[in-house]
């Protein structure tokens, strides 16, 4: 059983193992597709890049998409871990709290109405996604602090259901108002696709995601303690208010950035942390890095399935995660409330 004197070793082993899985996924996923390529030729330095079709397909056509999947999967999984600890409920996630729908609404408004303004060279879509997810978070958070004798996470999850329905309705309203082609673009985007055009999109998303992940990386022990309740954490020396603000805003940034990069991709924030806890246990010093790495790997694999398993037209990756996640979520509920 876990004894803390080998905690350091367990952290190293966990990061190494899940890191190896993520690295393998990043290398293998670009090999899959309609044009067959070989890894040996991709990294064959004797062929100049301009003549190396395999390397071009690998690095230009496919790798950006794989990296996008890595970032989006990591972000959604880590956001899920944060919400689950602070709300003390393994069913909390960007989806169930309404943050994803909020982010989606923000992005759809920008896409449909051609708000092409850029702020500091950043496209309006990620900003709008972050604003949308933050509005949802602010509503959910206001409900949680309004209840001063501890947060009822059931209430928050129900609030998330109501918010999702409400934002969903606003979203449809925007589509009715928008003209046909804009609405089509928005609907296409909403299906969830990691088909990013270039490395630029990935790098642009990496900046806010990296900052949010770094902030959360300082908090794994706090997540352990708050999962026993805010009062228990405070009495053991955690400044809960401060940690909560930092963690929840960071998780909202992660959700907004992930949605703006890949569209709404449901259930990653629930499936990944749950599987990870089954493997590494409850300690967030293991759960957090493992979820970040496994979340990326999971979404890379889902995206490969989406690209190839349903004919050449492909399928939105969000549909693949929903097909897996829906039954998984029901199974979790079933186990929990049996």
């Amino acid at each position, binding site marked *: 059983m*876990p004894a803390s004197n080998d905690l350091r070793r367990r952290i190293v082993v966990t990061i190494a193992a899940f890191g190896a899985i993520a690295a393998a996924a990043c290398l293998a996923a670009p090999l899959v597709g309609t044009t067959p390529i070989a890894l040996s030729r991709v990294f064959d330095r004797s062929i100049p890049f301009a003549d190396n079709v395999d390397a071009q397909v690998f690095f230009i056509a496919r790798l950006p998409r794989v990296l996008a999947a890595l970032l989006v999967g990591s972000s959604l999984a880590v956001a899920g871990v944060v919400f689950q600890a602070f709300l003390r409920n393994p069913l909390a996630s960007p989806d169930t709290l309404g943050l994803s729908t909020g982010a989606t609404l923000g992005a759809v408004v920008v896409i449909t109405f051609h708000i092409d303004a850029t702020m500091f060279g950043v496209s309006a879509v990620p900003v709008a996604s972050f604003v949308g997810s933050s509005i949802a978070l602010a509503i959910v958070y206001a409900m949680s602090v309004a209840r001063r004798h501890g947060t009822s996470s059931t209430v928050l999850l129900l609030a998330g259901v109501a918010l999702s329905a409400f934002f969903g309705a606003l979203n449809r309203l925007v589509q009715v108002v928008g003209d046909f082609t804009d609405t089509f673009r928005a609907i296409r985007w909403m299906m969830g696709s990691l088909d990013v055009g270039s490395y630029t999109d990935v790098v642009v998303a990496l900046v806010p995601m990296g900052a949010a992940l770094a902030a959360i990386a300082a908090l794994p022990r706090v997540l352990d303690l708050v*999962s026993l*309740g805010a009062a*228990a954490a405070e*009495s*053991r020396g955690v400044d809960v208010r401060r940690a909560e603000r930092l963690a929840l805003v960071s998780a909202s940034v992660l959700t907004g950035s992930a949605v703006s990069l890949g569209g709404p991709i449901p259930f990653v924030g629930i499936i990944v942390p749950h599987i990870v*806890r089954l493997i590494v246990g409850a300690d967030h010093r293991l759960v957090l890095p493992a979820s970040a790495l496994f979340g990326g790997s999971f979404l890379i694999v889902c995206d490969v399935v989406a690209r190839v398993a349903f004919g050449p037209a492909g399928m939105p990756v969000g549909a693949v995660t929903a097909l897996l996640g829906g039954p998984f979520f029901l199974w979790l509920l079933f186990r929990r409330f049996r």
Partner: protein
Amino acid sequence: MLAAHGVSFAYDRGAPLVLDGVSLSIERGGIVGLIGPNGSGKTTMLRLLSGTLKPASGRVTLDGADVGALSRRHLARRIAVVPQDTHSAFDFTALEIVLMGRYPHLSAFELEGATDLSIARDALAATGTIGLEARPFATLSGGEKQRVVIASALAQASDVLLLDEPTASLDPGFQLEIAALLLRLNRERGVTMAVSTHDLNLAATLCSDLVLLKGGRAIAAGATRDVLTRENVRILYGVDADVADHPRAGHLIVVPLARVE
């Protein structure tokens, strides 16, 4: 050592005071009981003492220093809290729960070392739960959970333990077990405690001193033998009760007989 000086508190501005000018003091090595009816302010008093709530007026001091001026980490090294129930959202083992008590002694990225582990095991042994260390906390019985949470508070190595109705959700067997454990920790390790409880017999067993709270005011305070009287029980709860020495129990016992108001 830990004292409240005329503290008042309301949860919202303009709301009725939950506590109204209460003073009390907890001396080193003592066990002070807070008793009173529902809504009398016992839990609020403990939260003020632990510094998680700030008084609207009055002061809470720890060795003379204002508790509000101390950092959460510093406070956690001096004061530990045992709530009525503890639930974990995730499958932590009993040992992992106890190790969380070491949090205020470690820096941000420091992992628990051999010393922390031996302190945690010592706390498990002191509460008779060493055999449970690898068990998932969620699978323990109510009494076992409460003992593990007390062990976690011991691992915090604080001077004072604040317990909020520590036996309220336990059956009589576990109630006695927790009471015996707390007495032993007080005698053998000199742990200072403040305990809120509805159980007057537990208070009589455990506490050297009592503070009687009603409607947010302290109506009496002093040595248990002096303030746990038939008259005070009537004032507190509106209940006619026999209060007498019990030869086999070796302390006062309270037998509620009838409601008089």
